[in-house]
């Protein structure tokens, strides 16, 4: 896969990934690559292992078989201690935002900086202000997550996920629970920020419209495998019955 900037090197390599929960095989030898700077959407019905895939990419779930390599690091062979260091290089946007309730938005954004950098308080404050500006929330820093709308929480969580200058961003159902306008806004924001900050981004979603709107390439997952991939035109032309049914709703 060649990215827009001509970089042949894949930033993310997933090969032969298999995961079962009891008798339920959610991933069945899944393989794909994502080039540096590329935005890829992984689409599929609910319960097809999209979130499980992302959690395996940061080592929060251990696969039964297969390998994941991100930015040259074999995630599947890291120890728990090594995973902690590795995860600080990967941004993760949760479906529920997962901002800390007991911290303000600004404190949530400052948290990873305090943990992983030697920045001064002033530098952290300036970086937090910059990222609040990126997500169009310059005046919301002093609010607690419970005082924000769902869309704002998603945007704040996106800023927290990217504030360490992460090279890889993983987004789990970013439009879930949002109205169509907020869904469009957060989708475009993810795309714009990823391109602006040079992030390689993987988004799991079942929101067809926003997947095509956000991603350079879309993978369709069914029965634990990729059944189709490409841009919107390729997928619309697919003869796979599941892909046709999924896209047509």
């Amino acid at each position: 896969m060649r990215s827009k900037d001509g970089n042949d090197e894949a930033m993310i390599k997933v090969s032969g990934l298999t995961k079962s929960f009891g008798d339920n095989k959610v991933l069945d030898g899944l393989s794909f690559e994502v080039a540096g700077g590329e935005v890829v959407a992984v689409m599929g019905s609910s319960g097809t292992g999209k979130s499980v895939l992302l959690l395996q990419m940061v080592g929060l779930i251990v696969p039964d078989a297969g390998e994941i390599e991100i930015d040259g690091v074999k995630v599947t062979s890291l120890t728990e201690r090594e995973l902690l260091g590795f995860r600080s290089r990967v941004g993760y946007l949760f479906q529920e935002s997962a901002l800390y309730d007991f911290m303000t938005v600004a404190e949530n954004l400052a948290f990873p900086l305090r943990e992983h950098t030697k920045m001064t308080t002033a530098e952290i404050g300036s970086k937090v202000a910059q990222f609040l500006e990126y997500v169009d929330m310059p005046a919301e820093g002093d609010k607690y997550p419970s005082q924000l709308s769902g869309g704002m929480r998603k945007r704040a969580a996106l800023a927290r996920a990217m504030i360490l200058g992460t090279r890889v961003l993983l987004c789990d159902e970013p439009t879930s629970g949002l109205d169509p306008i907020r869904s469009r806004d957060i989708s475009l924001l993810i795309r714009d920020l990823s391109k602006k900050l040079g992030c390689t981004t993987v988004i799991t979603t079942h929101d067809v419209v926003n997947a095509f709107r956000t991603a350079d390439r879309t993978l369709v997952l069914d029965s634990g495998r990729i059944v189709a991939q490409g841009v919107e035109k390729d997928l619309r032309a697919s003869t796979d019955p599941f892909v046709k049914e999924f896209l047509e709703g």
Partner: protein
Amino acid sequence: MVAAVAELLGTVGRSFLFFGEVMSYILRGKIRWVDVFRQIYEQGVQTLLIVMMTSFASGAVLAMQSQVVLERFSAKEFIAQLVALSLVRELSPVFTALVFSGKAGAGMAAELGTMSVNNQIQATRTLGVDPIEFLIVPRVLACMIVLPILGVLSEILGIVGGYVIATTQAGIPGVYYYHQTVNAIGYVDFFCGFVKVCCFAVMIGWISCYQGFYTSGGSLGVGRFTTKAVAFCYISVLVSNAFLTRLVLTIWGS
């Protein structure tokens, strides 16, 4: 049946691993003191008033009942000893631990449980931070600091409660009550109670945080795991109290 036993053993094993991990952080000095002080404040504020009220009332009730019984033997001047020794050796540590479980223990379990079902604990891991170090160690350590302090405070307030009843209703002079109390409590009596309350603190911190940390099942799960945390704390405190009492009596005698 076999599956249930296996699950129980798995839970017990996991809870011991959890406790071992928490203690390893504490023993290695990997402690976030700012968070510990915040937890001390929160747990202390949550329970201080209720511990003060229950302790004072317990001491007062103990003095009232002692007066009734001891007057039958013309020995009401021993009210002070009975109140002081009962509170210091037994009642204050247990009462304080039970009150603390119901307030701060439940609070910790519910807070961590909510974080767990809202993926905040997973998010901590994805931010490259160990949630045990960030969320659990400060709470357990704060428990280990706050509960013994509350235990001693409870003993003092219980004695004050007894003093009020003894001086106003039993007609015992205040100075006499004070001297009888001071003479009655030896170091051994104090440490009997203090060792117990320290053990209870470790158990409450461990159980409440463990239940909260592994909460699942959404908002229903938060309620269920919080209730489990409080019930397990109560059982652990009362059952271990029997063993601890035997232990301290064996070590320090009666």
